[in-house]
């Protein structure tokens, strides 16, 4: 059953005062419990698409349906994990994680109970009283993921959350992310520029064209989990996706 549907999403960027068509009509159906990764050439607007799904940007055309109802504004049913985490430096880890619950007016004892579960899941219990400047980049992204999960969103949106991490930290988080998905059964839309990351995480990988972008192909990946970056069985999917991406990256080069 369709959890989230994007219907003909069109978005223009402002390019030195000239409108530049970034999204040329994105159609995408995300089923309940899908872990769908979006890959595409840089600048194709996949992150913008994610922000439109989050309701943080308005498209010039088309609409997003969540459980069949059009979304109007941003809201906690679609929580976005930002590339740089966007954690609040003035709050301790625990207060960062509980921020959305506090906004929702949930009493303190209940907040602690909910946050405890996700702080444990993300292995953060030792750092609840730390400030973000005291944490490594990897730890900060764990906090960002915990902060998103406590909101129990209908759809979890992730915008290249592992892009700034070193290889080892990323590999660990790739495995944990699969476990979180299996444990929470969340519907996840995950933007990445790494084809390998996409094949490890996704049960579906959607390939964007160069702008004005559309979705060119959706690759289904059935391999059992947890998958690792070095799994050879993922190679054929990676080659298939790269074959789709190559002409798109090339057409970008010609434009310049």
């Amino acid at each position, binding site marked *: 059953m369709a959890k989230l549907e994007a219907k003909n999403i069109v978005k223009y960027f402002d390019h030195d005062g000239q409108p530049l068509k970034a999204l040329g009509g994105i159609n995408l159906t995300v089923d309940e419990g899908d872990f769908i990764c979006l890959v595409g050439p840089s600048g194709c607007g996949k992150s913008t698409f994610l*922000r439109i799904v*989050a*309701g*943080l940007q308005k498209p010039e055309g088309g609409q997003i349906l969540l459980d069949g109802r059009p979304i109007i504004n*941003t*809201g*906690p049913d*679609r*929580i*976005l994990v*930002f590339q*740089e985490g*966007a954690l*609040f*430096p*003035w*709050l301790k880890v625990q207060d960062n994680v509980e*921020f*959305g619950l*506090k*906004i*929702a007016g949930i009493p303190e004892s209940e907040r602690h109970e909910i946050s405890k579960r996700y702080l444990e899941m993300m292995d953060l219990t030792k750092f609840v009283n730390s*400030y*973000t*400047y005291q944490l490594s980049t990897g730890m900060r992204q764990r906090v960002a993921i915990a*902060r998103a999960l406590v*909101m129990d969103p209908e759809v979890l949106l992730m915008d290249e959350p592992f892009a700034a991490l070193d290889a080892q930290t990323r590999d660990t988080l790739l495995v944990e992310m699969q476990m979180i998905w299996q444990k929470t059964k969340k519907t996840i839309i995950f933007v990445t520029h790494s084809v390998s990351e996409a094949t490890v995480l996704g049960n579906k990988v959607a390939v964007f064209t160069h702008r004005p972008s559309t979705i060119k192909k959706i690759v289904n990946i059935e391999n059992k989990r947890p998958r690792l970056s070095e799994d050879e069985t993922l190679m054929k999917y990676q080659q298939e996706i790269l074959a789709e991406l190559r002409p798109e990256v090339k057409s970008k080069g010609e434009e310049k």
Partner: protein
Amino acid sequence: MKANVLAKKIAFFVGIVLVWQAFDSANVWSDKVFPSPLEVGASLWYGASDGTLFYGIGTSLWRLAVGLVIAIAGGIILGVFMARVETVNQTIGSIILGLQSIPSVAWSPLAIVWFGLTDAGIIFVTVAGAIFAVTINTYTGVKNINPDYIAAAQNMGAKGGQLITKVLIPAAFPYMISGFKQGWAFAWRGVIGAELLFSFLGLGFLLNVGRQLSDVSQVIAMMLVIMIIGIVIDGLIFKKLEDKVMSRWGLR
């Protein structure tokens, strides 16, 4: 403070006093115009022993505190609305820089007409001197907030007053601290300046009394007290606050 830094400072101040004493001993100017360090010290001792000095300090600090609290609260409100509401910025915002360029004592004549020679008048001058520095820095701070902080907060359901108190103000705090530092310095000048003109208690009043009695020792003694209070408040309150905020916000 490291021992050698402290030693340097002590040596410097002892040096100043010695040079000062040497000038006095050379008898270039009369003691009426140029008192010795001992005479200034005696004037301070005299003021301290009969309590007038402490009463003056207390009065000035009380006026400073009330004025500063009003200026900070008002400046934050003005600054946030200027940054978030374009109409406010286009209207009120356009005169804030102009108002900021008015020296605080220049508000005194107006304050005397409106409030008379009262505490309220002096506090008005203090607030007028400090509020626009807080406003401008708050405005800059809110304008410079990482847009992802605001997007994340809105995504998690924050809006209206919650967005302002839980995100905009704390996120802009490093800039606001600069506003508080400038604001407090302007406020202190405003208090002393107004007290000189109002001649109604406080350190500025004692300074003026010194002039009227041709007691230059008292004039210099009061200037020293005003300066020392400035150093202490800046070092003990604002410098510490700034250091703490800068490190927590990951800016240092």
